[in-house]
């Protein structure tokens, strides 16, 4: 299990307007592309260098591919990263302000303290 890589996916997609739209429209294709070409990029490093060992576990890949933010919470993805990216993708589909955010909270209502560990 790699909470770090889950977070890295959310972080790199969230900061790129084109990737936000691409992930919204084609989650499966975006996750497959990202894992095969981007997952091992070292973000704060010379270009041309990369890691060799980063892959998603099957549940992580499934959660990202299905836009399943409840499952991402359960897997320990950083809640701020998940929330920010999912607001960017889906708030627009809800007519009332904060309606998406409130539904997001309701869908997590079966979680009680302590929440899943987000340490990386």
């Amino acid at each position, binding site marked *: 299990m790699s909470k770090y890589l889950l977070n890295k996916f959310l972080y790199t997609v969230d900061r790129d307007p084109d990737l936000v739209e691409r992930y919204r429209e084609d989650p499966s294709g975006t996750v497959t592309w990202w894992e095969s070409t981007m997952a091992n990029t070292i973000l704060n490093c010379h270009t041309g260098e990369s890691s060799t060992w980063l892959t998603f576990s099957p549940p992580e890949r499934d959660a990202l591919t299905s836009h399943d933010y409840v499952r991402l919470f359960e897997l320990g993805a*950083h809640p701020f990263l998940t929330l920010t990216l999912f607001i960017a993708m889906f708030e627009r589909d809800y007519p009332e302000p904060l309606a998406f955010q409130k539904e997001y909270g309701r869908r997590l209502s079966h979680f009680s303290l302590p929440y899943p560990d987000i340490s990386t």
Partner: protein
Amino acid sequence: MATLAAVIASTHHPFYYRASTAPPEERPPFADAWVAKILAFRETLTRARPDVLVMVGSDHFHQLWLDNMPQFLVGKAPFYDANFYNEEREFGLPRMTLRGNEDLSAHILRGGLDEGFDLAFSNELRIDHSVTCPIITLRPQADLPIVPIYTNIFAPPLPQPWRFVELGRAIRRLVESWPSDLRVAVIGTGHLSLELGGPRQFGPHGPDPEFDRRAVEWIATGDIERALSEVSLDSLWNPGNATHGFMDFMLMMGVAGDGAKADHVDTLDLFHTMEAYFTWYPEGVPA
């Protein structure tokens, strides 16, 4: 030596800019009351006649990332660009550029290291809404040079709460030992109880109003001892999963000093979170 002209602590609410600048027909019903409180708060900084601002905040996974995560970081640069695409997107925050004061940055870095804080530094730092929100509320003309100080309240493992208090005490000593005639305000923002990306988010008020009530009391009375006895890295999950941002308030209590009663205290119970505003004048209330 420099004068510590004011110590200011507050929440940072990224929605304030949009709420206060929207056309009348789009302004939320609470906007006018919020603006009135902010204008009173802003006056507490204006009255202190600061020349330089030390700004304590926390990067929200913007420039700082999990492959290289500092616990405490001091910016040392002539300029700081500010705000990021996703803050523009979600909060409507404007792009900004602030000047830096490299001499004070260097003094805090050298003195902090010599006092036992292994501070990270950055010579090219783009700052985010944890610093720009208080610029917008307290000094919207953004005309004063700053020294940004980032803390990690976001990506565990985090430093202990007492360490935030100790760093705040050290920042005060370092500002007061800076060989300069300038007047320095130290401004830090954090959170009271807050939930982001969890089941208690975006409720009608903050997730734990009782914690908020006690926290405001600790801050307003400078009761560092009580805050430290009631708060731990584990306990801070209980009021809300983003409540570790309260440790930036604890840092500011360290700057203000043990038992220092705030000269200005105000709160605003908003949806989602309680806003709180505190100002101390170490040299006495300005005339």
